[in-house]
Each structure stands twice: as C-alpha cells, then as structure tokens.
C-alpha cells in the first residue's frame, strides 16, 4: 500500500499574515479547510506576488455575485474575485479573495504574476463584468462579443422564458454578421512582417481534428505557424448558471456532460464537494464502488484519447479497436448503472443502486482481456516509427512551464512532474489502493500519450483491487441530507413524514459555506467550488476543468511548427470542448 502523506496546512497562511501585517487581510474559515484570505484590492498584487514562489500554479480565477447572499462573509461587498492557488511541492491549495462594489468593479490584473490568469480573468469579465485593470486583452471569451449583460450576475435571466422572445431583424443581423468578421489586429496578429505577407487560416470551429467545436485562427508563413490564437465558447451551455437553479441532487446529471468522456468521474468531483459542505461520510462500499466506476471511465476516456491520437497523425485502424474495447466497457457500465456515457449514477452520500448480481464476472472478464490488447496496440501504434516521427519532440514544455500554465493530470506528468492527487492527496478512499504514477520526461506529444497509455494499465490494477476487496454494506450513507427516512416509519409519525416529504420534493438544504474538492479526473484537476447559502440549491457553482488551461497554453507550444504538428499537439493534449466551455 502507498503511504500517502496528507500534509496539513504547512503554515502558508500564518506566514503570509506575519510577513504582510499591514495588508489588512482577513481570514475566512471554509468547509474544505483550504486557507482562505480576504485582501483589499489595493494590496492584492502585493499579496499575490508574495504567494507566487510558494504557489506557482494558478488553478482558477472566478467571480461570485454576492448581492443576494444571506450568509455572506464579512468583507464581501457586491462581487468577489477568487484566486485559487496550488503548490505541487507542498500539495496544498490556497485561496485569495478580493471584494469590489458594483459601481467600482475593478481589480488589478494578475497576468503579470501568472500569465495563466489571462483567460480566467477574461471569463470573469465576460460573466460578471468585473474589470481587470492592466489586462492585455480584456474581451469576452465565452459569450459572443455582441452579448448584452453579464450572464452569471444574479440579475441576468437564467431561462429563455424570463427574457423577451428572441427576434433577429435585419439591422441586428448586420451587426451580428459584422461582429463575426475576422480582423487579425483584434486577435493580436499582424497582417505582414517586413519581408512577407501572412496567410490567415481559420481552423475550425468545424474541422475534423479539433475534437468538437473549437476554432483556432492561424497566422501562417507558408505552412509554418507564426501564431495561433484559440477561440472558445462554441460549446458553452451555461452549466454554472444551471447549478444555481437546480437542486443539489438534480444538478448531478449536468455534471456528466462537462467532461462528456468522463461520465461518473464528473459526478465524483461534484458529490465530494457537496459531501464536504454537508459533512457527510460515506460507507466503505460506496467508496470502492465509486472508485471502480471512476477508473472504468478513466479507461474509457483514455481509450478515446488513444484512438483519436493515432488517428489524427493519420493511422486509420487503431481507433476502431479502441472503440470496440470502449463498447465492451460501456456494456459493463450499462449493466451496473443503466446508462452509458452519462449515467448520472453517483448520489450525494452514495450511489444510485447497489451493484447488480454478476457484476464481478463482467468486470473480471474485461480487466483480464485488456492487458494483451494493450500490448497489441502498443506494437501497432505507439511503437510505429512514423507515429514517433510525428510526435516526439513536438509541442514540448518543461515541468515548470506546465505548472505555471495550470496544466494538470497526465499532461503535467508527461513533463516529468511527479504528482497525482490520487496518490499525493488521496480523496474518496484512494489511500487504500496500490498503484504507480507513470511519468514522462520530455513533455512532448508522444510522452503525453505514453503516460495515458500506462495509466490505463494502472487503472486496471486499481479496478482489480476493487474487485478483490469489495466491502459489504450499504450503498448510501444514513445521513438525513442524503437518504429520506425509511418509508415504513413515515407512516408512524408526522415528523418523519414531513422530513421524507421535504427530502423528496425540495431536496436537501445544505448548510451555508464554501467547499471545493479537486480530484484527478480523466484529463487533470476537476473541481466544483460550491457556495451554499443554506438553500436547496447552490448559490454559486464554479467548475474548474483541466481542458481550459490546456487550450490557453496551445499557442505557446505550437509556434514555429507546421500545421500537421499542430494537429498532433491538439490530439495529444486530450481535451473535450464541453470541458473547456462548460
């Protein structure tokens, strides 16, 4: 068994308070225990600069509209900007919050401290109208440039029925069309250099190799990429806004569709945060079932990655073998959950049902057959010299760069950074499992694939341990927020009946607070920062996904390469657009 070290707070907060005593900081206690500090915006950059060496990774920047919040923390005004930091070495998170009023919603941009703040701040501007002074390119990122209002503000309607009926008259159409016109200057690209005129190629949003609706504007000199500017938002469905309207339980199916290859892995990140907020402990059987299903989906996601990766460098056949395997895997998922890609099967405090009879045979057959097939794919795809020629050394970054840009998961480990949340900061019961964390060393497209292929084998190992050690016991916790009282007893006394009725009609009311539990999802860190105001639905749901920063980093690793290299890079970073746009 791995002896996981869970470092408690190593004193980063005390140290910060001691070093900058005059910064007027205030501490906030959160349900997840992450050190959280409020900083006046005048001192924000000082504090962030001070934290930068200790926490080189900026996980997330997002806004909260506090105006309707009953239980708001003391320093909060109208809007809050949250900086979520992470340190790989200390295995610690850190949260910095700054508060602004609606009339003066301006904070200094953190881009000089973390370049990765760029897209996150644009998103916060896009959704909340919070201005980041000093930001190099503060434009809308997810919603179209012609959008009116700021979508995640509490006064912005969430449903079409709350708005005027949509109409598109001619004037409006002209404006919308004009907004779509491509002007290289707006994307930060020159039309010509001293000695040559550039060609601009619009790759996507509909292109065979961009894995969904993703657009990149390419500035080309011949076939050489001078610059590449990604354009996202085509897959935006307002999942965070929906989180504020759905009850705690009914939001679970929406999470399935964030990383749509990850299935229940998304449920896990969400329910862990809710359970942390409500203080729910789950029985051992639930832990093992959840891990087993999550690892099955990790394999499923990695198989899709594997197949499309080699397909995008032009090998036609392997993807069919891998999809056939995934099909068998979905057979198991279907037998257990009744669903396939989006089972929405985890529940707050448990899972939806107990495992069906005969599940162990299905799982055993699958994990017994996979290693030989993986060996076969290794020979066919990964050992192929053309695949290597196309991907080795292409799109490489160092471990430091990866950390700086918020790259997580297998893409981080491909650059040699030995970090896996499952081992280094176990959650959901991973501390009881024995597995290795595969590492790459070049950080290039090939290594990103190698690490993922090896992870499939490790996941098989974890699933075998689940299979051999499945505990007996209940499949949901006996907590009043998660499980209604037994039906027989509701007919005995009125209190129990009321409780049962409220639980199944309104759903549970989760105690006020904030919590966020990052997990090692199929593509990297996935977390749901949930703010509860003591109601039956979340006050703010912030979804941090691994694909978002990966795309932000794309231009950096593709400059100076050829179009086919860009395709190899896109294939290797393993993203899905729903995971980027949410």
């Amino acid at each position, binding site marked *: 068994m791995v002896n996981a070290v869970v470092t408690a707070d190593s004193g980063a907060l005390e140290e910060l308070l001691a070093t900058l005593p005059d910064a007027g900081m205030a501490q906030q206690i959160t349900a997840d225990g992450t050190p959280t500090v409020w900083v006046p915006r005048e001192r924000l950059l000082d504090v962030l600069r001070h934290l930068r060496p200790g926490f080189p990774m900026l996980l997330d920047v997002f806004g909260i509209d506090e105006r309707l919040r009953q239980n708001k923390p003391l320093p909060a005004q109208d809007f809050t900007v949250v900086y979520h930091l992470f340190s790989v070495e200390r295995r610690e998170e850190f949260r910095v919050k700054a508060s602004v009023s609606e009339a003066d919603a301006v904070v200094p941009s953190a881009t000089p401290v973390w370049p990765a703040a760029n897209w996150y701040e644009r998103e916060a501007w896009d959704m909340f109208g919070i201005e980041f002074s000093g930001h190099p390119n503060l434009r809308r990122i997810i919603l179209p440039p012609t959008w009116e209002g700021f979508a995640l503000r509490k006064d912005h309607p969430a449903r079409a029925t709350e708005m005027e009926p949509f109409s598109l008259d001619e004037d409006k159409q002209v404006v919308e069309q004009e907004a779509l016109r491509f002007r290289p200057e707006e994307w930060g690209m020159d039309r010509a250099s001293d000695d040559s005129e550039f*060609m601009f*190629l*619009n790759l996507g949003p509909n*292109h*065979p*190799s961009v894995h969904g609706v993703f657009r990149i504007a390419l500035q080309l000199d011949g*076939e050489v990429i001078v610059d590449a500017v990604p354009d996202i938002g085509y897959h935006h469905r307002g999942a965070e806004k929906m989180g504020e309207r759905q009850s705690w339980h009914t939001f679970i199916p929406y999470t399935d569709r964030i990383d749509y290859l990850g299935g229940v892995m998304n449920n896990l990140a969400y329910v862990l945060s809710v359970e942390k907020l409500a203080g729910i402990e789950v029985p051992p059987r639930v832990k093992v079932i959840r891990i087993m299903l999550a690892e099955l989906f990790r394999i499923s996601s990695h198989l899709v990655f594997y197949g499309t990766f*080699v*397909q*995008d*460098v*032009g*090998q*036609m*056949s392997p993807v*069919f*073998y891998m999809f*056939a395997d995934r099909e068998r895997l979905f057979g198991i998922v279907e037998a257990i959950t009744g669903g396939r890609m989006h089972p929405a099967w985890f529940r707050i405090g448990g899972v939806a049902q107990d495992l069906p009879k005969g599940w162990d045979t299905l799982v055993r057959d699958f994990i017994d057959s996979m290693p030989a097939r993986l060996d076969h794919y290794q020979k066919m795809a990964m050992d*192929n010299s*053309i*695949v290597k*020629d*196309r991907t080795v050394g292409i799109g490489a970054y160092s471990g430091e760069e990866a950390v700086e840009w918020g790259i997580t998961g297998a893409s981080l480990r491909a650059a040699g950074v030995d970090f896996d949340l499952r081992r280094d900061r176990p959650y959901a019961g991973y501390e009881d499992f024995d597995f290795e964390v595969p590492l790459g060393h070049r950080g290039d497209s090939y290594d990103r694939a190698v690490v993922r292929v090896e992870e499939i084998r490790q996941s098989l190992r974890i699933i075998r341990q689940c299979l051999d050690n499945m505990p007996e016991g209940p499949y949901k916790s006996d907590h009043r927020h998660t499980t209604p009282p037994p039906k027989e007893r509701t007919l005995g006394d009125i209190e129990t009946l009321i409780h049962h009725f409220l639980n199944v009609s309104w759903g549970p009311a989760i105690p006020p607070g904030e919590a966020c539990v990052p997990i090692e999802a199929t593509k990297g860190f996935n977390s749901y920062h949930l703010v509860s105001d003591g109601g039956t639905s979340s006050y703010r749901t912030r979804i941090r996904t691994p694909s978002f920063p990966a795309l932000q980093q794309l231009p950096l690793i593709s400059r100076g390469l*050829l*179009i*086919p*290299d860009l*395709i190899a890079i896109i294939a290797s970073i393993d993203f899905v657009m729903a995971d980027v746009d949410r």
Partner: protein
Amino acid sequence: MTELSTTLFGLLIIGAAVGGAAVLTWFERRLLGIWQDRYGPNRLGPFGIFQVLADMLKLLTKDDWVPPFADRFVFILAPTVIVIVMMLGFAVIPFGPELQVIDLNIGLLFFLGMSSLAVYSVLLGGLASNNKYALLGGLRSAAQMVSYEVFMGLSLMGVVMLAGSFSLRDIVLAQEGLWYCIPQFLGLVTFTIAGIAESHRLPFDLPEAEHELTAGFHTEYGGMKFAMFMLGEYVGLILICCMMTVLFFGGWMGPLLPPIVWFCIKVFVLICFFVLLRAAIPRPRYDQLMGLGWKYMLPLTLINLLFTGAFLLVMES
C-alpha cells in the same frame, strides 16, 4: 488487331477501368472493415455490393455546383484531367500476349508522361478553388509529385536495362523464367512507394490529409466533379498495380490458367496490398515525406541503377 477491334478493345478497357474503380470503392471499404473489426457497407444486395450503385446515384444526382469565388473554367477542367490521363495510361498496358490497345516502343515513357500529367489535375483543382485549405493541398501535391516523379522514373530504369526495351510487351516477354521482382527488388520497393505517393493515397495522402486540411485540394468539390477525382484516384490505383504486374511480376505469365486471368489475379493481390497499407500506416509529415524521397529513395534508386549496370557489364564481358 484491326482498327475496329482495337477501338472496341480500348472502349472495353475504359469500361473495365471505370467499373473496376467503382467496385473498388466498395471493395476497399469492406476490406478495411474486416481488418478493423467492423462490417463496412454490407446492407445493399449480396455483401453490400449495391452500395456502389447507391453511391453513384447519389453523386450523379447532386447539384452540380461551382463556388462563386472559384475560377470556373479551371475548376471544371481539373477533375477531368486526372480521369483522362489515367485512362490513357491503360492504352500501353499489355493484359495478355495479344491483348494490348497499342504497343508503343516507348510505352514505359508514355505511362510516366501520363502519370506526370495527373499532377496538373490536383494542382489546378487546388488553385482554382480559391480556398486556403485547397491551396495548401495543391502546393503540397505539386511538391510531392514532382519529387517522387524523379525516382519513380529512375526506379524503372533498372527494368529497362535488363529488358533492353521501353516497350511494355517486350519487358513482360523478357521476364520469361525470372520475374524482375527478384533482380530488381530495390526497384520494386522504390516504385511501390513512389506509386503510392503518385496516387496520393494514405499514408502519402498529404494533398488531401483530412485531419489537417479537411479535404485538401478537393475541399470545394462536390457531386460529379468530386466523383471524378475519386474515379481518377481509383483508376490510378488500378493503373499502378497493372504497371507493377507488368514490370515486376511477369505480366500475364503463369501456368495453367489463361493469361488474362493471371494478370487479373496479380493486379487483385497488389490492390489488396495497397488497401492493407492504407489500413496500417500513419501519415508522415510533409517535410518528412520529402526527406524520405530525396534522402533515401533517390540514393536507393541510383544504387540500384549502378548495380544493375555493373551486373550487365560483367555479364557482357
């Protein structure tokens, strides 16, 4: 053969090539399907063979559209070029001892000439489309085909030296006893690779490269004009396989069975090999393909020439 029968035979060959190419579209998909653990088109008729008819019907009845921004004349001309030159290439192929449209004494050069002309089709199609993806595809194909042309011709010179003739009929007759695939093995390998590059099929389908250039040079093409490109590609594949049969595998020669049957069997096996290549090998990058051509293939063909020449000199003296 009389003039009339030659004409008839020519028409027959054209019909067979077009029919063969049409069936090949279905056959390739079925074969790929089998190798990839799936079925392929299997619904229409026995083994799905009528899929060919359905596809033809669909392509023929599609709106014959020319993009307003394209160079109309060249845009329409481009797909016809590839079909015509590939068809012409069949004129010099000896299918049997007496089965040949015309036995040119420069038959081999005629074939090389025709296959060189095919590059114009792709290039013009790419340029006339006035589309950036098509332009990149056209540029790639120009560079790729010009480079591979060089050693495609050179790789065959060993065969010419051994046979002492450019006439394809003479070349087949000279293989009595020993097929050239053995003494000219290097020539065979380089010609095969050049052949794939010339017919721009995966792994050398860079002008098309669907993962990079969406559909490359024929991005803007649809309906019948697209079908012409596809037809040209498949006829080209059959032509390359016929040439390999003629130049390296003894043409129509073989025991017991009639010559034309032997010829067809050999071509069929080679076509299966090309389909297998498509299923198995990834696509190299553009500059890697060029590197392969100039750095490895060209020297190989030259070495082959040198050794063949030396061998012939030694034999003579």
